[in-house]
């Protein structure tokens, strides 16, 4: 299975990835309806300490701590992709605490959300990869 990688050398911290991610996972067809005047919950975040910056999203670890820590069995891994079943998630946020990359966040419904490589939506190339203006995010 392909994974999303970031090439920090090329990250411009424009944060477009965050917005297109939120759009891709909003279920809305129109990007303005999806993002205007509402809090967004992207599954990729640009980390920036002034010297270095890059976008962080789920690494789909070989041995995922989030999966091990999940108390409700909502997190599973199949075909190399770690996914969260929001119907099973009870919102305890153990996964948020256990993820070493800080790649899991709380979604609009109070359940945990994370990057699932856009499998459930756009299909094909993840949106952050497609829209990164400088090819800083790649999927290989």
């Amino acid at each position, binding site marked *: 299975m392909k994974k999303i990688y970031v090439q920090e050398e090329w990250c411009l911290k424009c944060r477009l990835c965050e*917005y297109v991610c939120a759009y891709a996972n909003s279920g809305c067809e129109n990007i*303005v309806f999806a993002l205007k005047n509402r809090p967004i919950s992207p599954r990729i975040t640009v980390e920036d300490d002034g010297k270095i910056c890059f976008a962080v999203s789920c690494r789909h670890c070989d041995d995922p701590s989030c999966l091990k820590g999940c108390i409700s069995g909502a997190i599973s891994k199949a075909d190399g992709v770690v996914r969260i079943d929001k119907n099973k998630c009870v919102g305890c946020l153990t996964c948020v605490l256990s993820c070493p990359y800080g790649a899991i966040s709380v979604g609009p419904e109070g359940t945990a959300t994370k990057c699932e490589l856009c499998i459930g939506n756009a299909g094909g190339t993840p949106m952050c990869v497609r829209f990164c203006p400088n090819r800083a995010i790649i999927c290989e």
Partner: protein
Amino acid sequence: MPINYEDNIYEVIRNRERCINCRVCERQCANLVHKYSAETGEMVSDSMTCVDCQRCVSLCPTKALKIIKNINTYRDNANWSESAIKSLYKQAESGGVLLSSMGTPEPYPVYWDKILINASQVTNPSIDPLREPMETRVSLSRRPQNVERDGEGNIVNTIKNALTLSVPIMFSAMSYGSISYNAHKSLAIAAKKLGIFYNTGEGGLHRDFYEYGANTIVQVASGRFGVYKDYLDAGAAVEIKMGQGAKPGIGGHLPGEKIVDDVSKTRMIPKGTDAISPAPHHDIYSIEDLRQLVFSLKEATNYTKPVIVKIAAVHNIAAIASGIARSGADIIAIDGFRGGTGAAPTRIRDNVGIPVELALACVDTRLREEGIRNDIALVVGGSIRNSADIVKAVALGADAVYIATGALLALGCHLCRSCHLGKCNWGIATQNPELVKRLNPETGSVRLINLVTAWKHEIEEMMGGMGINSIEALRGNRLMLRGIGLTNKELEILGIYHAGE
């Protein structure tokens, strides 16, 4: 406080219905046009510093932005146009020479657009380039006058030091300093993959790019920046820059702010000092002097590399070219007055020189008349915008063309003509590391390769249409061209008939 006569030229229009306050525009504008107001929770724009580079428009995820001309109008005056008045205000304020970048935007005639290409019908068959072989490869060098054969009758190859190009296109000189490391890298990668050449410009060759030497033309200009043995040895050809189409007759000036670490090392001048290229080469005051430099460079490179002499298209170009053809140079490059620049005095850029189409035609004619056309290859540049321009240039007599503005456009340039400000939002004409990284050579080189490949296909299609299957057979084939809307004098200089003739 004195009155500020300056007026914003552009106006940023933000569609509030679509703006989602993501602040991408704010983060991407090096001119600080966009700002987020925490108080009102909205984006505000200060159009005063906008240069219309279109970076924000291109990156806005909701397409909420557009940039229009400021419609604030001065009283109509056909003589004192608004731009004429504004330029004057600027000089009254600053007391300085007006600076501009890229090729002249003034509405001079573009002769390419007044020339039409022929096609075969009935009497001679056209060729389908998808089914039949089509040769776009060209070789730039002095050509032999006679065919020589050895004792067994085999042809002896007497061509020395030719530059072989897969398509008659090269990336023309843009120095490291005037453009960024990543822009140079994109050009180098693309030239290598395409089997063509890029040109270092006068700023030396960065250590990292020596590996692309086989596809590099190294330039020797009046400032001699970064010129030393390894540099000359690294390239496939050496170009002597006598002039530049955008600013014939004057030198160059790269401000000290752009002479940062690597640029200073590559140019071999101290950090922060202005890089000044004198107007003349101080050792060249005649064709004989030029000949000396040509042979000095040949001697220095052990007669293994062709020498190119690049000149700006000026009034007596034909005589100058004739002199150069006799100077021992292998290739003449002519840069027309619409050619680009990283910075030039506005009045010179907009008023000095002649169109490259006319220069090319008269040089080719003159060299043929004098029987020395085969002694030298002819390369033209200065606003080649598409494959049709190339076909027309070749039919007028060029061996190949130089493209630079076109190459920069492929890399993202939007021709805002603000290179001299050093804040290029596309990471091309800047040395600010935050901006330079905006151009990823991996994507940049792919776009350049795409462009040249597309042009190659189109050149093949047009040649096929004319029933010609190799660039060699198109070169100087002026019967394939007809003028449209040109005067008798223009047709005479171009050496072509009018449409219908």
